[in-house]
């Protein structure tokens, strides 16, 4: 349970000489594991008192040794031990949930503030906040003052203390300013301490009264001489003095004051805490960052701090700094994360004047719209894909980019998307020698390598913040079957086997070979007709039910199969009643209504939340369903959130426990990438990410993550060795920072360097050209700055790569390709030969007398796109076809379809075709056209499922989600796979149109140049809306397709044409006002009105 950083603190603590720090570490961990065993698994009730007594005595003994003359520039290690051991001890007490009299409650109140004080001195301020909040909850429920238990002065002091420790300096000072008198010497002492705390709050921003420091010293001396036992007062005085000593180390305001002297408003609102918000206390990573990045003036930063360590805040500080010099590119891996970052920054940077926060969202497809850049100083939050498009289309603006931030920078290791992020960063570096690069991740192992890359390419120093500090402790557990508990019984005529499940936990996180492991037999028993017990989902469900029954908010991450998330939630079985369950809010009800409208049937999610206390969060859900899940979980209406691994990335949810269901991603993925190394890496990333989500800072001091291994292990009993457990679940020993980052394009670049300039371009070279900015002024410099090139080292090779790629371009042009076609291909991120093909196809249409220009509608253009795609060589469209087949393939019952992918691969498709395959291909294209038409016409997902399967859905299966074969998951996955790929082709069509009109307007066919719908086709197609106006509703108001269509129908936008969705914002706002006034009693309209009225 104890992580590496806290182990080091225990090692540095002053402890009784009869104990070693390792013994203490193990006692704390063992106690916490015992608490888990008792309170979650209901076992081992007997030895409660020995654990809590042991820890309390360690805490007391260490506090005697706790030096009052500690070096205040460093973390107070003993304070951590005092707080941690006492707090773990108190967990046993908290879980007893006895009715306690008021005077005991008051003692508890002081006790938690006591722990909070020591956590504060150890720089675990989030833990101080949690324990002080527990104290304040007691304060709220009782009036100690009225009961005569405490005099007013003492009561007021403790309130001040609590506010101070929670970083609510404004409230601390308000309390200190209350007119309070005390008739006793002791009471007057407390009032003086209250003044000291208020003064300390001022000192945090450099305004303290020095005379109070002196008076505090004198007061302490006087107390020591006093012949009365004011021990509590003495103890509090010692603490307040220690707080004073720690302030120079902890005060973030003081650290930033000179650097941000022109950002007083920001300092006041975000840092000073006088408004009771923000971050007055510098956590260790923050301190390290401020020291290196601001004080030592390092130019870049590589931040590898565990989840919850405050990386986002460091990015915020870097943004505030960089906004003074230009705009900030802030990249995050998913649109959902980008939206959250935008919302957070908008809120947190509200005090910084003349800036804007803009999100530029989307996927890989080319789109015409660009960020608005309404302010020259802004943070642009984007996915790497959109950043790549931006740099290709508007490279010049990157000269004004002052900082490029990449959140979750382990993305660089991904073969799928790492190359894009790498190119964007390299381009930023190449465009502006002053640009600062901030790379952040919890998972990167070799941060020094990334730092070397930045340093060597820019000649600037890099702040390497690789502090393995986490604000909470997380116990890492696993569960295995215990075969010594195998039982067989007769149930009627049948045999029934059952087996117990054993939990294992190490004293340290991550697990080590030589530390004591603790195990206990849980009450979970699996039953089955034979000994092949259904394992992973079954045991996950049992574990999840245990946490729900204990009212602990728990995340369950399902790695293997996203449909299992629904299946786990649906089959949850527990006995649980809670008196004060929150009612569904109107927002939750409206989201359910919206989901039902989009799906065309009732959403299963509502039922799961209602009956099983379980939310679900997977990619096979609608946005509104995911939102519903998040809200219900945050509000405590559901106690379980069953999610796929993608949720583990970045999104911050209130949880105290995590169950990781399996450690390997599905090998099928999206059906296209099956690289086993890549899969292993992604699996590991997701497991580590998931485990880091247990115990969010400011919610709990510690949490639990349980890894359920993928397969049912055999021959295991209580005597299993630790080495064997580690062999079954190797990720138990992985550090958070385990991922090695190697450039995903290094090998591609290397292979390019060896090819001679006049040979035909290879597939790799064509894909590199599709990826890189191809303008002559950018291609070489971008390559030069890549991580891949840094790893290659050889400058001769670099020149050879650049020469080779330039020559491919030149050769393409000399052999007839147009430069603007190459550009269009690069914008669309596709190989230029495909763009050539499309151009030639359009040209052939023009000269074909039988050709009818496409209808200028989304459907018209989609059909034109199909006409082009259908005549392409089979190998080009095979991936697209496979994605459609996956959704098309009905594999149940007697009338199941043949497995076309297997069949085609067997005949050697796409290189070879047979009559049978041709017939199927024809059918598939027909089905594709039909379903895409329905998609754009606004059919429900249920109907889409029926069109894909060509089978009507029976009413009892309409809302099923537990298997990819059901209609709803099938349709949603089709959208995510097939439609998104198709949108990329639509992007190419649009890019060609744009470039053609721009470069050779006279030769562009009229029907192509005069279109009013093609400009938004890629977005409209991806979003599944009927027309550009609905696309604008989708972008600005409601991210659900049928709702967007409905809004356009009921309150049409006033514009005659819609070429720029970004620009439509004002028009949409005006129409929204009209919509809100519409008199329409339909449930969906009412739900939309309520959902949108707060926009």
């Amino acid at each position, binding site marked *: 349970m104890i992580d590496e950083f806290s182990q080091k603190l225990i090692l540095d603590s002053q402890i009784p000489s009869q104990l070693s720090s390792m013994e203490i570490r193990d006692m704390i961990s063992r106690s916490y594991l015992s608490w888990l065993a008792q309170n979650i698994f209901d076992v081992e009730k007997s030895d409660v008192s020995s654990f809590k007594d042991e820890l309390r005595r360690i805490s007391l003994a260490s506090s005697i040794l706790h030096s009052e003359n500690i070096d205040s520039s460093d973390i107070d290690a003993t304070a951590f031990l005092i707080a941690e051991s006492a707090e773990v001890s108190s967990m046993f007490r908290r879980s007893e949930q006895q009715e306690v009299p008021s005077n005991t409650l008051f003692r508890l109140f002081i006790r938690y503030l006591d722990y909070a004080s020591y956590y504060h001195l150890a720089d675990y301020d989030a833990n101080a906040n949690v324990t002080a909040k527990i104290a304040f909850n007691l304060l709220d429920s009782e009036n100690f003052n009225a009961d005569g238990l405490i005099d007013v002065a003492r009561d007021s002091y403790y309130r001040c203390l609590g506010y101070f420790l929670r970083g609510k300096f404004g409230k601390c000072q308000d309390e200190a300013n209350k007119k309070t008198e005390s008739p006793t010497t002791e009471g007057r002492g407390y009032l003086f301490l209250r003044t000291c705390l208020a003064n300390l709050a001022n000192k945090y921003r450099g305004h303290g009264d020095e005379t109070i420091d002196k008076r505090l010293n004198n007061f302490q001396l006087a107390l020591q001489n006093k012949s009365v036992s004011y021990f509590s007062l003495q*103890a509090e005085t010692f603490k307040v003095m220690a707080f004073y000593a720690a302030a120079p180390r902890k005060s973030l305001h003081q650290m930033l004051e000179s650097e941000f002297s022109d950002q007083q408003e920001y300092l006041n609102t975000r840092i000073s805490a006088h408004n009771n918000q923000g971050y007055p206390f510098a956590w260790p990573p923050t301190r390290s960052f401020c020291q290196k990045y601001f004080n030592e003036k390092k130019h870049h930063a590589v931040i590898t701090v565990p989840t919850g360590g405050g990386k986002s805040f460091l990015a915020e500080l870097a943004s505030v700094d960089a906004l003074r010099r230009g705009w900030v590119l802030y990249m995050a891996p998913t649109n959902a994360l980008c939206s959250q970052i935008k919302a957070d920054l908008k809120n947190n940077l509200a005090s910084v004047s003349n800036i804007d926060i803009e999100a530029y969202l989307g996927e890989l497809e080319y789109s015409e719209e660009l960020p608005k850049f309404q302010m020259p100083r802004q943070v642009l939050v984007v996915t790497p894909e959109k950043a790549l498009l931006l740099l290709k289309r508007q490279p010049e603006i990157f000269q004004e980019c002052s900082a490029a931030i990449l959140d979750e920078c382990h993305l660089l290791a991904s073969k799928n998307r790492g190359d894009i992020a790498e190119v964007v960063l390299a381009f930023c570096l190449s465009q502006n020698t002053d640009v600062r690069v901030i790379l952040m991740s919890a998972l990167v192992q070799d941060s020094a390598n990334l730092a070397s890359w930045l340093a060597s390419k820019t000649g600037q120093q890099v702040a390497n913040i690789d502090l393995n500090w986490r604000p909470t402790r997380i116990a890492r557990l696993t569960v295995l079957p215990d075969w010594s508990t195998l039982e067989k019984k007769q149930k009627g005529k049948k045999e029934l086997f059952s087996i117990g499940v054993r939990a294992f936990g190490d004293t340290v996180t991550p697990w080590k070979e030589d530390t004591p492991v603790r195990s206990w037999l849980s009450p979970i028993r699996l039953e089955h007709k034979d000994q092949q017990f259904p394992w992973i989902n079954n045991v996950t469900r049992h574990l999840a039910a245990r946490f729900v029954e204990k009212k602990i908010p728990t995340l369950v991450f399902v790695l293997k199969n996203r449909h299992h998330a629904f299946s786990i939630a649906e089959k949850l079985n527990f006995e649980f009643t809670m008196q004060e369950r929150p009612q569904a809010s109107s927002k939750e009800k409206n989201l359910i209504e919206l989901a039902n409208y989009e799906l065309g049937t009732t959403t299963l999610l509502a039922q799961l939340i209602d009956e099983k206390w379980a939310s679900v969060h997977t990619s096979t859900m609608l946005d509104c369903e995911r939102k519903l899940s998040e809200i219900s979980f945050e509000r405590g209406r559901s106690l379980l959130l069953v999610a796929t691994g993608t949720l583990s990335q970045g999104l911050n949810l209130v949880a105290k426990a995590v169950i990781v269901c399996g450690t390997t991603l599905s090998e099928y993925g999206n059906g296209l990438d099956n690289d086993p190394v890549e899969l292993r890496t992604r699996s590991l990333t997701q497991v580590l990410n998931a485990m880091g989500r247990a115990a969010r800072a400011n919610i709990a001091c510690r949490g639990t993550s349980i890894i359920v291994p993928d397969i049912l292990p055999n021959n295991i009993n209580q005597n299993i060795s630790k080495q064997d457990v580690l062999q079954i679940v190797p990720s138990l020993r992985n550090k958070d920072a385990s991922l090695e980052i190697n450039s995903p394009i290094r090998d591609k670049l290397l292979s390019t360097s060896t090819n001679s300039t006049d040979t035909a371009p290879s597939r790799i070279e064509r894909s590199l050209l599709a990826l890189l900015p191809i303008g002559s002024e950018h291609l070489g410099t971008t390559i030069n700055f890549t991580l891949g090139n840094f790893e290659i080292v050889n400058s001769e090779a670099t020149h050879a790569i650049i020469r080779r790629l330039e020559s491919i371009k030149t050769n393409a042009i000399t052999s007839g390709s147009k430069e603007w076609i190459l550009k269009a291909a690069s914008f669309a991120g596709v190989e230029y030969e495909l763009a050539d093909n499309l151009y030639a196809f359009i040209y052939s249409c023009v000269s074909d007398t039988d050709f009818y220009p496409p209808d200028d509608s989304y459907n018209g253009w989609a059909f034109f796109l199909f006409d082009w795609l259908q005549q392409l060589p089979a190998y080009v469209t095979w991936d697209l076809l496979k994605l459609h087949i996956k959704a098309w393939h009905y594999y149940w019952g007697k009338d199941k379809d043949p497995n076309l992918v297997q069949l085609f691969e067997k005949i050697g498709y796409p290189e070879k075709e047979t009559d049978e395959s041709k017939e199927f291909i024809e059918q598939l294209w027909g089905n594709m056209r039909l379903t895409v038409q329905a998609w754009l016409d606004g059919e429900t997902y249920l109907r889409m499922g029926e069109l894909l399967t060509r089978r009507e859905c029976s009413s009892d299966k309409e809302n099923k989600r537990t298997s990819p074969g059901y209609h709803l998951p099938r349709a949603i996955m089709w959208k995510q796979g097939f439609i998104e790929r198709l949108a990329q082709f639509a992007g190419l069509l649009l890019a060609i149109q744009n470039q053609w009109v721009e470069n050779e307007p006279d030769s562009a066919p009229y029907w192509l140049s005069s279109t009013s719908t093609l400009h938004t086709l890629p977005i409209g197609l991806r979003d599944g809306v009927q027309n550009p106006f609905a696309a604008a509703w989708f972008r600005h108001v409601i991210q659900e397709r049928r709702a967007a269509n409905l809004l356009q129908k009921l309150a049409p936008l006033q514009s005659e044409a819609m070429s720029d969705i970004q620009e439509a914002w004002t028009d949409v706002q005006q129409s929204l006002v009209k919509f809100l006034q519409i008199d329409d009693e339909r449930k969906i309209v009412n739900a939309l009105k309520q959902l949108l009225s707060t926009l």
Partner: protein
Amino acid sequence: MKIEIEVSRALDELADSVRVIGPVTVANHTNYVVTGLVDTHEQKRNLCWCILGFIGNIIEADMSIDSAIGNGKVATDNLQRALEKRLGVGDSLSLRQKERKRDPLLQELISHVLLLIHQRQEKLSVWLGTIQAISMPHLSPNDSGIDLIAIGSLYGAPISIIGEVKAYEKKPWDGLNNACKKFSEIVDGDYDDEIRGALKSLTKQSDISFTKEQLANNIWREQGHFGALVGHDSQYGKKGRSHIDVNFSSNQGEVLKQNADNLFFISSPFYSMRSLFDDLTSELVELSNKLSETL
């Protein structure tokens, strides 16, 4: 007449007169019965001098005796103000006020006197060892803190001593049980902030013969010694017939939760607690007046 001389003399005399039966180790705790504190008028007067010593801050934190209260009329006035403030002397106290405020404070002061006596002649050695440092009594009856915290030395090692003082006229064993409730809370950690402060403070006293490392080791090893000091009527049972039995072992719930090896019951039977405390109050006033009369 100088108060510090009187206090010092009274302590010496009380040390001679106090008789302790015990320690008697029974199943669930160890018993002591203390007599000879108030059995004669002289003993009562001596006890009152000692109590005045605490009330008048004559007894310092290191248990030395040094007057800072003045002499003659000044001393009388100062002491009487302190008596009014602490014990409500001069006011006519209701029975409830006596029970809730005056009597517990007097009992706590008596218990501290007992420790001062032990410092002179070790009479409660199994419980206290050799006293090294001791907390001063609370002078505010509303204080919810621990009544007595001390550090003793036993077999060469320091040991923490926690005392809870109860004044229970009729049911001394209930007093033990109630004291044990508090001991449970202490063991649960509810008073750790106070104990931390106390132990740190006591280890700073000048003439201690142990290091804080030794004390830390000892605290890690064991919880310390818990003593319930219960004052009660010598005939407390039904119709006043029962006497305290030094061989009796309490089986009450809270008692059973404690570690029997570390739990001590120190009984102080008085002929009648209620009238004793009234007598003591009068005596305290008289003695304080005496200080100015004799000048």
